């Protein structure tokens, strides 16, 4: 990842936040409680991704992972 990659991603993120704030919430479509939280999906993506990695690795270490010859 080069510096300009990060800048481009940062600009995209800013653009998505601005668009989100400028888009008036149509009550018919914003039926869910989380639609009123700005940047909810950014948070959801980040926390969700961390949670998936950490929890899966934890379950794996605790319970599921075995050496490759386990069934032989």
């Amino acid at each position, binding site marked *: 990842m080069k510096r300009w990659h990060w800048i481009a991603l940062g600009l995209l993120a800013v653009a*998505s936040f601005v668009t989100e704030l400028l888009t008036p919430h149509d009550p018919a479509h914003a039926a869910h409680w989380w639609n009123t939280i700005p940047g909810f999906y*950014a948070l*959801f*993506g980040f926390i969700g*991704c961390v949670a998936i990695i950490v*929890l*899966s690795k934890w379950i794996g270490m605790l319970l599921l*992972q*075995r050496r490759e010859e386990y069934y032989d």
Partner: protein
Amino acid sequence: MTELLLLPPAIPMIVGGFLLPFFPKRMRSGAFLFFPLYSLFIVWTLPAGIHTIIPFLQYDLVLASVDKLSRLFGVIFCLTALTGGIYAFHLNDRGQQGAALVYGGSALGVTFAGDLLTLFIFWEIMAISSTYLVWARRTVESEKSGMRYLLVHLFGGSALLAGILLHLQTTGNLVISRLEYNTGLSSILILVGVGLNAAIPPLHAWLSDAYPRATVTGAVFMSAFTTKSAVYLLARLFPGWEILTLLGVIMALYGVVYAVLANDIREILAYHIISQVGYMVAGVGIGTELALNGTAAHAYSHILYKSLLFMGAGAVLHTTGKSKLTELGGLAQAMPLTLWLYMIGAFSISGFPLFNGFISKSMVVSAAGKAHIEWAYLLLTLASVGTFLHTGLKLPYFTWFGESRGLQPSAVPINMHIGMAVVAFFCTMYGVAPGLLYGFLPFDVTYEPYTIPHLVEATQILLFTFVAFWMLRGKLAGEPLIALDTDWFYRRPAPWSRRLIVATTDRLFSFVEEKAMEVALSLSRLARNPFNLFRSSASGPLEDYDPDKERWPLGFFVGAVLACIVVIAGSSLFR
């Protein structure tokens, strides 16, 4: 004239599969492509309605029942058999090429079956022909895995048949139509049979067990037919069964968790089939018109991008001989075209705008929202985070980037890239112009994927998933380990059950045989000389019958009997 050409769609491909081995090597791969094209022509041309009825006992077997839903699945099955055929063009393996055609044809047979008995027949052909695609890898591992795959599918098929027969007994008909929600044994058995093929946990382990061990080209076909024909049947038989919403969401997340732990690239993709099919199963469970449209659309999209992903992973395996993340890395320089075509599949499955996953996955998720099943909405969205994480980031990062292992991949056969390019074209085409797909969905529902909130949602999720991946990527490197799954329950006890069932039976049989031989031996000795009955073997070895030696005692005995008779006869005369 054209009417005569309109066979049931399954027939050209199945017959083609049996004819193909007789073609000379030079023509075989070309001939392969003809049969799915022919089936596609039929699927496209057959008018809606019921065709080709064969009377069997007192039932009518319907080989071609056409409506919007079956036509949609039929088209994508033919299309993927065609692109798979291009990808496998370099192949020179009669059995594998024939089996792939029969397999695709039987999936069409399932799709267009108008009654449960026809369905079952094609269901079993599908199981057997696909097993060959695992065995054709010709390694000890794939031989064992293929046997497990076959046994599990035969179990599922038996459950399905038992359910069908019970259903016939109670309702008296075999027509494929929605089953009313009930907990009767027949419905449960049919659900188990179909759910096994749809890889619903805990009946899913055959998939992640067999697909990574199948041949390079075989896995491409397998990724399309078995699970999606089961999804088609779920949509036919069980729409609105709420339990499927729960099962679908569990599936979507289950695949994600295991994909974190998987080391083999095709195993990661296999677990993401389970995850993606979860969306379709959930759509069936939600059961609204939008949800069922979403299930059908997502199955269509999924077959395209998943076969593209398996093609990409297969190209890596084909050219390097390696498929584990711990053995791969730094291949981007050597195979840039494969990487980019793979990434189109990865963008599609991850739901990037302008690719076909975006326009179909969102239908199911929106349907969950519109039906106010908010937990399903959020958890399915979470699963899509995991999808991007694995298929779009972890797998390509550690295969094509990451630490180089000094691999020298051979050249990718040109036909593999052409096959991938055709599928990549379709993935993008449907993403850019979703109307091309929406027009053929079973219900007339207007749905607009490209709305500003939806684009904002997708952008934020994908961006910040990437950020989290980049921060934690060190944790995601492959590990030379396996993760236990529900196949543990039949793989682990296998040696013991083999000992119990096979060895114990063997021992019992040999014991009985030994004893029977002993008895026979002593009986034959006895028959040779009945006097042995009165002699114990302790007084010396038992002897065979010798008339001179036995004359005196025998003569005495016979004489005594005669004397008795004379005495009795005489006494009765002089009474």
